[in-house]
């Protein structure tokens, strides 16, 4: 990763609103052509970071480049080569699909405008809705239109802020297929999400909380770095078992996953010691399991909160 050219390379980024520090000493490197997942709880500073990267917010401190342009002084150039999809639908509801795309195309000096708009509408399946008002589109279609509006000017970098929030699974899957297609064409994509299955579709992920970067790497790296051990147990009356296990010292987390309980700890021996009495109970079936990404995130958040 160190020799790959970087689409985003920033360090020391900070931003406050009033007295509230939203992003603090934030550094990140995103290699070109990668799908980079941005995860973190609500209010962790994901949107603020993305807005700083595309020049919508001026950082209080920090420096860096985005596509080789200085994020502090060359916001105008960055805007030309970046596609930013806002969290909220940001196109005009009282204009048709085609009118919206032509408007955005003109903002980016796309030429020849009309053939290009027709082309992307054909490619992304919007052609038959070209004359429909954007406001009457369903959530999935709105999201698709917003993505198309972002790629109209053929940006080298896409910043997608929770693009699939509130969209049905089918539309989400189609959306991710489009993202992978774009990635295959060489577009770098930074996407924020709350969905674990979407995180797993990314090449690399970063986990942010309270404006700090907590974890970064591929999924395996992130799970491996956490040093967590997980056992899965099934059997009768799991809620009672869950309550009991949570009180054990070696157990950091006990969370229900369908008909199973995932028991997780950071110390292998302490965890096994804690569950031994219950493993001897014939009613329960125990098996070693992989800690999930969600386990890792929740654990990281919980331990950090304790330290704070």
């Amino acid at each position, binding site marked *: 990763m160190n020799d790959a050219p970087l689409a985003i390379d920033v360090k020391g980024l900070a931003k406050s609103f009033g007295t509230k520090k939203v992003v603090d000493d934030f550094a990140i490197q995103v290699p070109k052509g990668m799908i980079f997942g941005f995860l973190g709880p609500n209010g962790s500073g994901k949107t603020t970071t993305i807005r700083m990267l595309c020049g919508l*917010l*001026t950082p209080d401190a920090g420096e860096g480049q985005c596509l080789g342009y200085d994020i502090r002084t060359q916001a105008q150039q960055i*805007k030309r080569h970046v596609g930013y999809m806002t969290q*909220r639908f*940001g*196109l*005009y509801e009282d204009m048709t699909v085609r009118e919206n795309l032509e408007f*955005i195309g003109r903002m980016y000096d796309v030429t020849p405008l009309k053939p290009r708009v027709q082309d992307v509408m054909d490619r992304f399946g919007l052609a038959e809705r070209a004359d429909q008002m954007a406001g009457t589109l369903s959530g999935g279609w709105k999201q698709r239109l917003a993505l198309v*509006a972002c790629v109209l000017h053929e940006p080298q970098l896409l910043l997608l802020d929770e693009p699939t929030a509130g969209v049905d699974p089918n539309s989400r899957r189609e959306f991710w297929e489009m993202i992978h297609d774009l990635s295959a064409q060489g577009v770098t994509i930074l996407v924020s999400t709350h969905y674990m299955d979407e995180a797993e579709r990314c090449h690399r992920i970063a986990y942010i909380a309270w404006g700090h970067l907590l974890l970064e790497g591929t999924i395996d790296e992130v799970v491996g770095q956490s040093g967590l051990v997980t056992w899965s147990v099934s059997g009768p009356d799991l809620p009672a078992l869950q309550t009991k296990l949570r009180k054990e010292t070696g157990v950091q987390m006990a969370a229900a996953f369908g008909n199973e309980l995932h028991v997780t700890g950071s110390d292998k021996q302490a965890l096994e010691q804690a569950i031994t009495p219950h493993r001897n109970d014939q009613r329960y079936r125990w098996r070693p399991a992989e800690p999930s990404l969600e386990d890792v995130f929740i654990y990281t958040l919980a331990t950090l909160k304790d330290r704070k």
Partner: protein
Amino acid sequence: MKANWDFSRARFKAILMKEFIQMLRDKLTFAMMVGIPIMQLIMFGYAINSDPHALPTAVIVGDTGTFGRSIVTAMENCAYFRVVAWPDGPDQAEEMIARGEVLFVVDIPPDFSRRLLRGENPAILVEADATDPVATGNALSAMAQLNLTALQHDLIGPLQSLNAKEPPFEVRVHRRYNPEGKTDYNIVPGLMGTILTMTLTMMTAAAITREFERGTMENLLATPALPLEVMTGKIIPFVFVGFVQVGVILFTAAVLFQVPVVGSLALLALSVLIFIAANLALGFTFSTLASNQMQAMQMSFLFFLPSMLLSGFLFPFRGMPEWAQTLGQLLPLTHFVRIVRGILLKGNGWAEVWPQLWPILLFLGAMTGIALRRFRQTLD
């Protein structure tokens, strides 16, 4: 299943509480609810006076005798007139009335005393700026009575006979610019400014706030669009709207109310353009202050109210106390109403219009400055 239609006091109370919480949370709306009645009370109670006194008057003294002085004193004593100028001749007086510096010109002819003594029943000429008939109406009726009393103390002893039956002199009133004293002549030009102020300020303020409210501004700012491009692009359509409105008003005024257009339409168009720009800049400034469309509307309304009441459109400007007149001078509408009345009814040219035009230009400059400073290219 049995429908439950029983009125629940608990539910009713819950909704009541919720409404109060939301009402108090929107600080601006709450301030308006309290502020508007106070503002209205002060303006109607103290500022507005439909029977204005101490109106600026110019006197051309052709005859320096006792009788002339007595007439001027009597005019000032009746409190409607305040002599502010002693022009040398009709030309200078004409200029003053065209500019709106005085509302009346009283001309006492050179041989007034001599003819009075001879019992020839001489006349003094009173020219009134009748563009606003309400402002000058009462003063003119007072003037008409003046000939009965003005010389009571002078015509004594041997001259008493002159004061015997009929009034010793005649007051000839000349209603300038609006001989029939039609109020339409006054209202229609004023209405033009009022309509432009109300619709344009509100529409621009709402149009820009709407982009923030609907989240489309974030998208727009993420594109390479520059603030000046956004500002001018959003404003120009309303200039057209404004001119369409002016066209409709002028056409209607001419057809339905027979309001004359004495002056130059080109000069009117230029003044309208500057006035529209001032209102749009104000609307833009409001939009940078308001956080939603509702607040933008309220701010526009808050500005519109004093504009309408203090500009001299609805109530005579000269009737207001000093502080209200000063406040009124700050409002573009005050100057615009004078410009439009001047051009349409008096046939005023550039020289008379300019003194009213530069305050609007000043307002425009200040508002554009504020708007551009406050409108950010970023979301900081």
